[in-house]
């Protein structure tokens, strides 16, 4: 039995009955290695590959050359002071209008994202948990989620779910997020508290099962209990075929969603990357020490 060094997935090598027969060895060896090879291919192409991304809002350049590579199974945290471009990065990946990409590329599983409409990005597996979820009066949460899920399924070539099948599908996710059932029949986010809105975002993520989830300041406005519930939901969704990018100002959320990598974004660039300990260092010393480091280098 083998395990992938990167993500610890078990890779089965099935040599079958003919292993002893010398004449077949070459052929059988190749066949047996197929799942391993294809698994390694996934790692060879990063799930999210951002190269030299420049983006502006009107005349103001906000992203000034972002490079970031996120593999399946990894959780990356992007931290930075206010105005550093964190939310812009999240919005550009999700395809929000009002941002002009002037240079660079964003790819998901080797596919160019920037030419796709937001709904096509969702179909490609991108999910953005909004910093400020939008209220949609008149559309119930259930109707909205089913329409979303069925569109995503259609794009994956899977059959649409009937109302009964849909309710079955979401039952465990409702429990996972400790959602009050009444929230399902209410209009999307309308009159939800700050915590309920954020919980609803992660609930949507659980239902839609994206391959790349970007959480934009999901911790803002949450009390400690809600934070734990939300973090628990996200942790449950961690898997070897899913990448999660957590955008946050504070280290607090990272106590609960422990990242594999931490990147520090300042002035539209990633200025420092490291492991989870970088977040702790940042918490202790503030963003000032990075600035000093940068100044010393210059």
């Amino acid at each position, binding site marked *: 039995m083998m395990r992938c060094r990167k993500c610890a997935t078990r890779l089965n090598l099935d040599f079958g009955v003919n292993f002893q027969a010398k004449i077949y060895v070459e052929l059988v060896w190749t066949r047996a290695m197929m799942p391993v090879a294809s698994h390694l291919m996934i790692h060879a192409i990063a799930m999210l590959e951002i190269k030299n991304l420049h983006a502006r809002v009107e005349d103001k350049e906000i992203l000034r050359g972002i490079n970031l590579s996120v593999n399946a199974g990894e959780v990356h945290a992007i931290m930075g002071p206010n105005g550093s471009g964190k939310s812009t990065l999240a919005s550009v990946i999700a395809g929000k209008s009002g941002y002009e990409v002037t240079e660079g590329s964003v790819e998901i599983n080797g596919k160019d994202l920037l030419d796709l409409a937001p*709904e096509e990005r969702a179909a490609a597996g991108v*999910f953005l948990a909004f910093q400020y979820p939008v209220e*949609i009066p*008149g559309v119930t949460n259930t109707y909205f989620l089913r329409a*979303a899920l069925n569109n995503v399924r259609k794009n994956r070539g899977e059959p649409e779910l009937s109302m009964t099948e849909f309710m079955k599908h979401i039952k465990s996710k409702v429990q996972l997020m400790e959602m009050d059932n009444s929230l399902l029949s209410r209009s999307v986010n309308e009159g939800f508290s700050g915590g309920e809105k954020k919980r609803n975002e992660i609930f*949507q993520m659980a239902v839609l099962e994206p391959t790349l989830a970007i959480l934009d300041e999901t911790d803002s406005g949450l009390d400690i209990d809600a934070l734990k519930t939300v973090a628990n939901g996200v942790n449950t969704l961690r898997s070897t075929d899913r990448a999660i990018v957590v955008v946050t100002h504070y280290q607090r959320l990272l106590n609960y969603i422990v990242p594999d990598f931490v990147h520090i974004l300042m002035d539209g660039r990633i200025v420092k990357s490291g492991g989870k300990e970088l977040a702790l260092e940042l918490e202790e010393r503030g963003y000032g020490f990075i600035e000093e480091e940068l100044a010393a280098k210059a």
Partner: protein
Amino acid sequence: MIDLKSGNHSLVENFELMKGLLATYGPDSFQVLRDRAFRNFSEFGIPTTKDEEFKYLSLRALEEGHFKPAYGATIDRFQVEQTIVGQVDAITVTFVNGEHAPELSSAHILPAGVFIGSIKDGLAVYEDKIVQHIGEIASLKNKLGTSNDERFVHLNTAYLSEGAFIYIPEGVSLERPIHLLFLTSANHGPLVSHPRTLIVLEENSDAKVLETYLGLDGVYFTNAVTEVSVGPNAILEHTKFQQEQADSVHIANISVNQAENSIYTSNNINFGGKIARNDVNVWLDGEHTETWLNGTSVGLGHQAIDNHTRIDHAKPNCNSFEVYKAILGGHAIGVFNGKIFVYEDAQKTDAKQTNQALLLSRTATINTKPQLEIFADDVKCTHGATVGQLREESVFYLQSRGIPKAEAEALLVYAFAAEVLLKITIPGVREILEKVLFEKLSTTQELPEFVET
């Protein structure tokens, strides 16, 4: 004003043609009503935009059109069943081009005393009730207001013939909804019909009525009047669904008298027609009544949809709630005029009026005018009018979850209308309206034109 006496307008000429036939319907008092109404209409003629009540609605199509009287058209049952409302489970009375079509109506065993059919047939049973109410409820005589305009009611009354009649006697609660279906087929040239409806609910009765105006083909003019008497403690849910043909003119007056402790709900849904005008007038004739006026209209292309409502708070302690929504795209024109009169005696009146418009294009127009005239000093009256567009952040939110842009926009438009559609409780009707709404929105290219950032 257009002088009809000098020109020979078809709406006047028809009267001479049909006089003999009309005289065969109803008692002599009907003839008196008809003659008086005809004189009134001929005197004032078709309104123009110089008339206060028609300031934003051009009726040139009526002025320039030539409309034949309608009679003799037949439609087979299969064709009716194939229409969007063909499967509504209700006690159905069908009219084709204004004429009663018993062969297209449904037969039901009704509780004793209940009458659902034509005015002509109803006269045999309830002549006193019909004579008492007809022409009276729709009259603005002795009511407040300086610019009252009743000429289309007069035009309708001049041609008073078969009509629809619903009578619910004291204490009867009718579970099954009633469907008055007015079909128009004008494939032999422009025609005019004047549907007349009288609905009488006696004390402690309860009913649900759906009035559908559905165009099948051709160009035509429908001029409808519906008079409603809601007795003491009675409850009526009254939904009107207008889906006329694209080049037709629909003018309708719904006039209601409410007795003490009654509850009346009007759901006024307008999707069709080139020109659609509704006057919904409610006279509160007893204390402790509750009135709900809900309206949704969708106008695209060059449609003009004009809703005038008036509530006469003539007695104290009455509540009225009004929500009118308009969705307008293309070059459509919407008009809302909401009058609330609070009479001197009507203390403790609580009236709330809301009017909201959603504009889908830069070239769509809404003219909105709340008009509150209050002569009592201890009342609560509020009104609010908003005009808006689809919000870009809402569209993006839905898109980011995988919902295509066009579907997201249609969903948001539907959500805007939903508040009103949700008020309709007749089984299956809301689903029909949703379907018509989505189809109407999906056939237009106008949606993405105008989104608020």
